[in-house]
């Protein structure tokens, strides 16, 4: 777990040095996209081969739906409070 955070911190440092180098950043974005493609393909691959997970897909889906609903509902309510009590009065969004 720590290695993930270290790698990201190290990346941020390199990224700061790369600021303004559009070409390099373009290739980094492309590489990110392809790593995501590859990793999600592998995630799919091992899930497809796992009968237990495949059988429980409907209940995983229901849990996912509930969590997304809870997360969205909670955040729009918190955003509403922020809007009403802070932003709307001072209108910093302009």
């Amino acid at each position, binding site marked *: 777990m720590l290695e993930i955070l270290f790698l990201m911190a190290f990346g941020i440092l390199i990224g700061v040095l790369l600021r303004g180098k559009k070409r390099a950043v373009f290739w980094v974005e492309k590489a990110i996209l392809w790593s*995501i493609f590859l*990793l999600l393909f592998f*995630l799919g691959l091992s899930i497809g081969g796992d009968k237990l997970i495949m059988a429980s897909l409907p*209940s995983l889906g229901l849990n996912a739906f509930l969590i997304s609903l809870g997360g969205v509902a909670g955040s729009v309510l918190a*955003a509403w409070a922020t809007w009403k009590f802070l932003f709307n009065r001072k209108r910093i969004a302009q």
Partner: protein
Amino acid sequence: MRTSLIILLFFATGLLAGTLDILPAAINGKDLSTWALYLLMFLVGISIGADDRALEALKSHGLKLFLVPLATIIGTFAGVAAIHLATTNLLFGESMAVGAGFGYYSLSSIIIGELHSEALGVTALLANVMREIITLLLAPFFVLWFGKLSPISAGGATSMDTTLPIITRASGNEFAIVSLFHGMVLTILVPLLVTFIVSLI
């Protein structure tokens, strides 16, 4: 939007290949995906570091900008904690880890799948895709019911890219910077929060 579809297509293709068992056993991705995750985190770090738009937004708008992502984080965790009672076979920390994806489904599902379990990785993928879709569909209604910041919060980390066009259409162009900043803060925080919460389970 198109990229999201391609990402899901790769997942679906993997799923199909796994179900049909058509790939040789040597290609089981386990070691490779650990290394690919390391590479991905390094690259995500670079793209965050190289992007100075968040800093620029902060310079022109001040620290108050942080209130929006803060509201999203508090609201999301409170909402997920409340609905956790309705979920089945999930530990509290597992629900929270999935919620901490804030719509960033590719990265959160990969990290959770790698560090915790594949089943929870799929849950994170589905839950966070749904968060993006709900935002895309309901953004105009959110503005009516909960004010102009609400579609930004609902979009989570996606408010800087995939849901940005819908948000500016629903809330107005003057919210583009708030939305961008909000998405960037959450994009940085997703890997940190997900990894941290998973380590507590």
